[in-house]
């Protein structure tokens, strides 16, 4: 990759866990624990991993909804990790977020028109008339009728509400959109409409996406590269095709094996990893995947593996002792 739009280095987000009668933080929830990633202009990076592994937290750090504990975020060649809200403002309009549950993220007492122009008002862009024009433009882009302007979110279906969220995210012509499970709550038939829309918008406006999801078929469809996260860390990443064809990390392999295939002739006996995701408050020693890993060796419970490029495709990174 020649140029990066977003460069994240060794990012950490440790939430204090308050315990006991003095409510002193004696432990930390290491939700994101040393993540590095790059996203190029016009590129989609898919981010997958089990519930609770830190995907949303990572997204929220990048949009600076959370102040990360350590590490750096560089956006358009500027380190934005510690910018105050005024200094951040010009960059923030270029990073937007689409949320999993449109009903939660859209204020139900505001009209669709108000919701979509809110970012314009916050950023002090345009006057009343030009904002109204922009709202109509955005509704048209996401395929909603102009008369939606005066209506309320609850009058729309799930898929249409998600389009409202997308219209709002696009209002400021962002460069990067963090899509946090934008289709997980939707029906298959609506899901494909939204995916088509996101791909079209990307091609038209050269958008970059960080696309968070747990449906791997969806992620593969939309992503150029994929990163797999486990307990706050990236355990494998690489080009989308390479990951699906040549996954190396046992966790990635088990994720791919667990995808239900919509073809009854391929009822396969799957290899299923057992056990639940361990707590990020007391993560296992060594490789944090070792209690569930079918290939775990004795050193796995002691030595922490690091992301490395053991393959001929040097952009393919794996963090596992099996690679040594």
């Amino acid at each position: 990759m020649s140029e990066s739009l977003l460069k994240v280095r060794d990012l950490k987000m440790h939430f204090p866990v308050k315990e006991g009668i003095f409510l002193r933080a004696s432990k930390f929830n290491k939700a994101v624990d040393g993540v590095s990633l790059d996203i190029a202009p016009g590129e989609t990076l898919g981010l997958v991993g089990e519930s609770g592994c830190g995907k949303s937290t990572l997204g929220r750090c990048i949009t600076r909804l959370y102040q990360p504990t350590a590490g750096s975020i560089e956006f358009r060649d500027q380190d934005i990790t510690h910018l105050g809200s005024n200094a951040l403002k010009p960059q923030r309009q270029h990073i937007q977020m689409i949320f999993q549950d449109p009903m939660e993220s859209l204020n139900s007492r505001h009209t669709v028109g108000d919701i979509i122009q809110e970012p314009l008002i916050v950023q002090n862009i345009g006057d009343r008339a030009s904002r109204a024009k922009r709202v109509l433009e955005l509704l048209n882009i996401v395929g909603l009728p102009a008369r939606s302007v005066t209506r309320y979110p609850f009058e729309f279906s799930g898929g249409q509400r998600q389009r409202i969220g997308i219209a709002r995210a696009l209002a400021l012509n962002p460069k990067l959109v963090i899509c946090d499970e934008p289709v997980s709550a939707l029906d298959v038939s609506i899901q494909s409409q939204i995916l088509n829309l996101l791909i079209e918008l990307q091609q038209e406006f050269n958008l970059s996406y960080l696309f968070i999801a747990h449906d791997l078929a969806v992620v593969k469809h939309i992503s150029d590269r994929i990163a797999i996260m486990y307990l706050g860390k990236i355990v494998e990443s690489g080009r989308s095709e390479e990951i699906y064809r040549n996954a190396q990390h046992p966790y990635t392999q088990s994720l791919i094996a667990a995808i239900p295939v919509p073809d009854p002739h391929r009822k396969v006996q799957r290899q299923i990893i057992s056990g639940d995701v361990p707590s990020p408050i007391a993560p296992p020693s060594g490789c944090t995947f070792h209690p569930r890993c079918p290939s775990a060796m004795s050193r796995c419970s002691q030595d922490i593996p690091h992301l490395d490029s053991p393959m001929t495709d040097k952009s393919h990174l794996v963090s596992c002792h099996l690679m040594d």
Partner: protein
Amino acid sequence: MSEALLEVSHLVTEFDTDEGVVRAIDDVSFAALAGETLGIVGESGCGKSVTALSIMRLLPQPMGKITDGEVLFKGRDLTQLPLTEMQKIRGADISMVFQEPMTALNPVHTIGRQITEVLLLHRNYTAQEAIQEAVKILDRVGIPSPDIRMGEYPHQLSGGMRQRVVIAIALACNPSLLIADEPTTALDVTIQAQILELIKELQSDLGMSVILITHDLGVIAETCDHVVVMYAGKVVEKGSVYDLFDNPAHPYTRGLLASIPRLDTIPKAKLSVIDGMVPGLLDLPQGCRFENRCPHSQPSCTHASPLIEQVSTSHEVSCFRWQDL
């Protein structure tokens, strides 16, 4: 072929609402065969959960009622049973796993208490025997250290473990029919795979029938023998899982199958979509309910509702034009 354990025929369920009576399911018929898994698929709001609740006689009261049809289970019409009889069947002969595990568990009671309650209600166990049996069942659904978990509360368990506890409760009395309403939708792929594998395993061990409600076609393909496709309160197609995936006859089923991204679709290629929206239950069209979205509709489709026709011995469809497609 095995015989029908449950036969739903011409079932109609209606709700009283402020805006009038809505018919949530209309003339629904299908059979669940002994020892098999029947899948029910369809868009959100098409009546899958209402169908399940009607079979269980658990419709919200007083708004919901079955107004026509029958539900034959082991030769008895469940719609006509006195409630006390129905209560005996529920949990013992037919069990249900609900869409959201947290609603099925009582947050203030321990896991152990919730399982033993079911056992004591339906079996002649002493308290001691019920506890032993409960530990066994938790172990069977793959809960580690079941004796410790017995004393814990739902909030102390992860989502996947909670769903396994709900399944454990549903299976406590070895039912002959399990109705699972989206048992894995809230879970991620690895936990989903565990739960589906568990249901399959228990099914072959205990010989029970399963009705699996989901909108995930991958899950259907992997676990079901037969499939019912619903649209706007009606059954539009049913058949063996091979009929449905290899030779879908209804335009809606075809649209669904075409719209899912698969691992082998070309990245970023345009996915096909079903345009338009499901009609509301209060303004259903006279003719075919899929007409406003159907790429093959013709004027005659708006006049009358298509009847169910036989495609093959195992395969039925409700569309005027299935033979032309």
